[in-house]
Structure formats: structure tokens, C-alpha cells
């Protein structure tokens, strides 16, 4: 039998990792691992290597890493990586939480799933050793229960099969159905079930039940009981497996379950399901067909429980991921809807030049603007911003549009409009939503702009006569804050050349990669530089300036502009 220890000292430079990989993969194959396994071992070692470079050495590429590789042919391979870095806090080495799909954090998950044992050994003064070991399949010495079960080749085969197949089943129901079937056969029991903990309600739920008596399945399936009751409650609290040979005599036996199902429990085998330190439920077998459960049964069930727990956790995480994916699709439709809500063309208002645009953020935003021609040479303009993003905000924008449209048919008096809009936002299902809203009516004959402002960023006004830009700060808080409120109304006479710039806070708040904000100063300066420009030119210049400021940093909020200018 070939045994060999080899050493390699190498700089912690990612570009050298291919050398290490070659070394490990060939040694693994020599130890007797098949090509696939050798690839996996190589991946684990590579991840450990890059982890040292990234975390321990903080990308200081000149530092050394000492590799010691030992293998016994047809038995196992052991690889140690030693560094000179500051000792690690072992508790900080985290396995990737599979519930989150995000870049990074996968390396430790790889190492721990591939290798049979992984030890992190901080050295006393300086340096760390990570020691990983992988056994050939047929010789892997498991924990004690596995040693026991080696006596029973059938059981061992079943355990290995469960270990290999379960983690790949990501649909929780399919997974649990398979688990109870396997457990029932393996334990030679009348029934088996998976009881899951509903953390929010602190109840245990019979999630999946298999029993020779169909009636029991019907009655137990979905049955809930308090998580601190009965033998199950005890198992959950102590986190220790338990078998009860004479259930009825056990003081902890919670008769509620038997009573409500008409089942008769003689002996029970319970083992806790836990992921890391978190209890997630119980795996149980009921009434052994031939006699009573013994220690070997309990050990076998405990051996399965670890894999079962991880598989349940994976399946749940996967469901969450799929939900996220579905949600992203929904958001996409919502953002299409948002765009459809905005006007497709500009209004034709005698004596007034208009320009407007909404550049939506990647998420569904809540910006809104609209125009409405009214009777007697009057034109209505509205701009608003619903707090928050996502579906709710998108819905609110749609509601705003139809509410405003309906309201203007009845009355376009500004106080009526403001009151109706406030009631709509206040009464919306989601109370936390607020909306800024600026509403104006322009009288073409008189060249008068009358408006009310509910919390929308103060418009900029250019008075052609004194060539000054100033903020029109008249206005109050957003819609939806108070149940009824009378918003004050203001009027101004527009002179030829006067310009009115309305914008959403996505302009002012636009950030670059240094988290600097575009801000009022830069906005003001840009406006000042737009001498004699038309509303459309001003609008384009603002957007361009904001984009230049942000460079490629993507917009987190909609950017909306509406520019009105009285013709010269």
C-alpha cells in the first residue's frame, strides 16, 4: 500500500493556484479517487488556498503558503494548508447560507461539502492550519452510528443512498414523501412521519405522514400541536433522540394526538431534525412491526436525520429562491405597467412650450406625471412621487392617474382635486404609503399658473425679467399624511420667457459611486448655465448633467422632469 507525504511551498498568488491544483488532482487520482472526486478535492483545496489569500493575507501576494499533502492509497487523502497570518477566529468562518443567492461566500460551503473532515487550527502565536481529509467511499469511517450499521450492509446501503439522493431533491413535498417511505422501510415500522416546527406559531405540524392505516394518515396529516407538548416537545427541547417503548405509560405522552386520530401508539422513535443549532422538526417512526425499537434502530434514524435536515433546509431555501425569481418577473411587468401609465406625448398648450420625461430606475419606481386639457383654455399639469418602490408604488401610480382623471371630469377646482387625491392616498390599503403631488392649472388667456404643492420638491422658477432662478417654496406636506387637509393655493403670472422646472427627488438625490449626491447647488448652477434655452433643451441638459455626475452608477430612483416655458 502506497503512502506518501509531500510538501509544497508557494506564494499566495492566485495566478499560481493552477500549479497547486495540478499537484492536488494528480495526488488524489494516485490515492485512488476517480476523476470526478479528484476534481472536487482539487476545488476544495483551491478554495481554501484563495480564502487564505483573500482573508488571512488580505491580497498581499508575496506571503507564503505551506502545503502538506498526505495520502494512503485506496484509503484517504489529507491536505493541510498553513499560513503565517494572524490567527483566525474559528467562529467567524461561515458556511454559506444557501438561503441567499448572492455572489461570494461559496468557498467555505464547497470545502465543507466536498471534504469529509475540515479542521481549522489557529496556531498559538502566528499562523493557521486548515486540515482537510477525504476518504475513499468504501472506507469512510462515519460517526459511531455508521460504524454500528456497517454490520448491516443493507442498512448501510440504504443510508448511503439516502445521503446521495436526498440533497438533490429540491421540492419539499417530494423530498419528505421519499424520506418517510425510506424511513418506514428501514425501520420496519407501521408508520413514519416528518413533523416540522412552525417557528412563528411555535407549533409542530405533521407535515408528511405515512402509515399502514390510511385513516391515520388522513387524520394526522396537517395536524398541529403546541411545540412544547408531549414527547415530541421534549425531543425538540433537549435535541436528543428518544425512543419510548411503552408510550402510554410515559408521563410526557401528549394524548391529544392519539385522541384526535384514534391511533394507538405503542412504541415510538423520535429524532430531532436540526440545521446547525436550529431545531427544525422531528423525524419519527411508529410501532415496529416485529417487536420493539432497539438501540440500533435509533442510531440508524439519527444517522439519517442529519442528511434529512440539510435536505429540508436546502429545499426550503430553493423555494425561497424560486419565489425571488418569480417576484423579479412580476416586478418587470409592474415596471412595464408604470411606463404605460405615463403620457406618451406632450400636450399642445397655446403660448406655452412643454417638455417632460420620466427615466425609470431599474426597480419599479413611483414617479408620476400627466397633462390634461380642460375646457375654456385651461390646462392641468400634475407631477408626483409615491414613497417607496415596487409593486405597491407602481399600483399607486396607476390609481393616481385614474383617480385624477375621474376627478377632473367632476371638478378641476384645485382644492377639490387636492382633497380627492389626499383621500385616495390616505385611504389606500397600505397606510405607510405617502405621495408627493404637485398640481397646477395654466390659464392660456391670462398666462396665469395656479398651483398647490403637497410635499413635492420645490419647483425652480426663472423670471425672464430679472434673469434669476429661484425656488418656489410654497407648499405643504405630502398626500396621505392627514385624513383631511386643505392645501393652500398659489398663483403666478408667467411673463414671456419665464420658465418653470418641476422635478422628482430622484434628480436631487442621484448618487455617484462615492455616494455623493447631485444636490441643489449643482442643479442650480446647471440651470443658470442654460441661458435662452428651450424647455426641451433644459430638460436634456439636466438629464445629461445628472448622468455625467453619476457616471455608470445605476439609478436607484426614477428621474422625472417637467419643464414649462412661456413663449417669447
Amino acid at each position, binding site marked *: 500500500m502506497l503512502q506518501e507525504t509531500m510538501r509544497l511551498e508557494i506564494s499566495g498568488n492566485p495566478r499560481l493556484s*493552477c500549479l497547486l491544483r495540478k499537484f492536488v488532482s494528480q495526488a488524489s487520482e494516485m490515492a485512488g479517487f476517480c*476523476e470526478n472526486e479528484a476534481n472536487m478535492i482539487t476545488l476544495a483545496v483551491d478554495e481554501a488556498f484563495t480564502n487564505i489569500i483573500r482573508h488571512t493575507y488580505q491580497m498581499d501576494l508575496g506571503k507564503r503558503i505551506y502545503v502538506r499533502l498526505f495520502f494512503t492509497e485506496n484509503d484517504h487523502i489529507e491536505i493541510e494548508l498553513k499560513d503565517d497570518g494572524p490567527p483566525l477566529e474559528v467562529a467567524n468562518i461561515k458556511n454559506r447560507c444557501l438561503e441567499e443567492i*448572492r455572489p461570494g461566500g461559496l468557498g467555505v460551503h464547497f470545502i465543507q461539502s*466536498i471534504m469529509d473532515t475540515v479542521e481549522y487550527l489557529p496556531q498559538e502565536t502566528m499562523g493557521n492550519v486548515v486540515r482537510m481529509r477525504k476518504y475513499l467511499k468504501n472506507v469512510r469511517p462515519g460517526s459511531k452510528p455508521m460504524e454500528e450499521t456497517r454490520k448491516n450492509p443493507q442498512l448501510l446501503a440504504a443510508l448511503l443512498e439516502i445521503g446521495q439522493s436526498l440533497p438533490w431533491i429540491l421540492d419539499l413535498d417530494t423530498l419528505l414523501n421519499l424520506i418517510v417511505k425510506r424511513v418506514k422501510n428501514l425501520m420496519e415500522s407501521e408508520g413514519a412521519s416528518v413533523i416540522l416546527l412552525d417557528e412563528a406559531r411555535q407549533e409542530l405540524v405533521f407535515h408528511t405522514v405515512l402509515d399502514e392505516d390510511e385513516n391515520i394518515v388522513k387524520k394526522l396529516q396537517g395536524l398541529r400541536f403546541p411545540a412544547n407538548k408531549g414527547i415530541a416537545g421534549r425531543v425538540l427541547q433537549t435535541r436528543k433522540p428518544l425512543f419510548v417503548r411503552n408510550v402510554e405509560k410515559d408521563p410526557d405522552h401528549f394524548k391529544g394526538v392519539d385522541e384526535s386520530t384514534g391511533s394507538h401508539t405503542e412504541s415510538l422513535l423520535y429524532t430531532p431534525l436540526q440545521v446547525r443549532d436550529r431545531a427544525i422538526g422531528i423525524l419519527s417512526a411508529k410501532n415496529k412491526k416485529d417487536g420493539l425499537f432497539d438501540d440500533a434502530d435509533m442510531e440508524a434514524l439519527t444517522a439519517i436525520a442529519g442528511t434529512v435536515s440539510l435536505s429540508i433546509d436546502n429545499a426550503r431555501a*430553493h423555494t425561497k429562491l424560486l419565489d425571488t425569481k418569480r417576484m423579479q418577473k412580476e416586478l*418587470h411587468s409592474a415596471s412595464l405597467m408604470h411606463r404605460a401609465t405615463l403620457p406618451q406625448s406632450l400636450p399642445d398648450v397655446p403660448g406655452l412650450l412643454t417638455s417632460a420625461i420620466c427615466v425609470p430606475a*431599474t426597480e419599479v419606481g413611483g414617479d408620476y406625471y400627466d397633462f390634461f386639457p380642460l375646457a375654456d383654455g385651461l390646462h392641468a399639469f400634475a407631477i408626483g412621487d409615491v414613497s417607496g418602490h415596487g409593486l405597491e408604488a407602481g399600483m399607486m401610480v396607476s390609481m393616481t392617474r385614474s383617480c385624477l382623471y375621474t376627478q377632473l371630469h367632476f371638478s378641476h377646482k384645485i382644492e377639490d382635486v387636492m382633497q380627492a387625491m389626499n383621500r385616495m392616498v390616505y385611504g389606500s390599503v397600505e397606510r405607510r404609503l405617502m405621495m408627493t403631488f404637485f398640481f397646477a392649472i395654466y390659464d392660456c388667456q391670462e398666462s396665469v399658473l395656479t398651483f398647490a404643492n403637497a410635499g413635492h420638491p420645490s419647483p425652480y422658477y426663472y423670471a425672464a425679467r430679472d434673469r434669476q432662478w429661484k425656488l418656489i417654496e410654497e407648499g405643504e406636506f405630502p398626500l396621505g399624511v392627514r385624513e383631511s387637509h386643505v392645501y393652500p393655493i398659489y398663483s403666478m403670472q408667467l411673463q414671456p420667457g419665464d420658465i418653470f422646472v418641476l422635478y422628482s427627488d430622484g434628480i436631487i438625490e442621484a448618487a455617484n459611486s462615492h455616494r455623493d449626491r447631485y444636490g441643489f447647488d449643482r442643479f442650480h448652477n446647471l440651470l443658470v448655465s442654460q441661458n435662452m434655452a428651450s424647455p426641451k433643451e433644459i430638460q436634456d441638459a439636466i438629464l445629461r448633467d445628472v448622468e455625467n455626475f453619476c457616471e455608470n452608477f445605476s439609478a436607484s430612483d426614477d428621474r422625472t422632469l417637467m419643464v414649462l416655458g412661456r413663449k417669447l
Partner: protein
Amino acid sequence: MNPKGIEIQTRQTPDMALVIPVGEVDMSSSTQLRDILMGILRQKKETVIVSLEEVDYIDSSGLATLIEGFQKTVHYGGTFKLIINKPKIMDVFKLARLNRIFDIFESREAAGVKIV
């Protein structure tokens, strides 16, 4: 094994981009892949396909890059596809349980690549 890292080929049409890294995607080369991928994503291509047909090795930093690409593409409403025809590359995706998250195809035809 290419000690010089990877070479990345790209083919593009107005609505589709095909990215073909050639070699080993590891910590030292995944930044290269990331740069190219992010450049393409900024153009918001409707379909972004990364073919791993010519990749011999991929590690967690490579996967992280692809996850980022996937997330950004879905975010702007695009479609992100992977082509994987080697079991050893697929094994790494399975280990990370990412095989059901990505849309994975065995060949360019199956992925609907219309670029020659």
C-alpha cells in the same frame, strides 16, 4: 491548463450577447470575466449567454461572477443563460445548488444562439 489565465471571446447582435471564456475561471481570471460581462450588461442586452463549453475549471469566484451577471440581467428584465456541456463543470454548479437557478443548456442550439 493555461497558466496565462483565460481568453474571453464575445459575439454580439443588437439584442443578444454570447460570452465564451476559454481556459480556467479561477480567482485570478474571474475578474477578467466580470469586467467583460458587466460591460455587456450595461448595454442591457435582452439575452445574455455565457458559454462554458471551453472552460476546464471553475471555482467559487467564477460562480459568484455568474450569479452577479444573472441577478443584474434579471433585474433589467433580460434573460441570462448558461451553456454547460461538461459534467465536471456541471458538478460544481450542483455542489452550489445553482443548477436549478440558472437556465442551463447543453449546446448553443438548445440555448437559442443565433450568432455564428
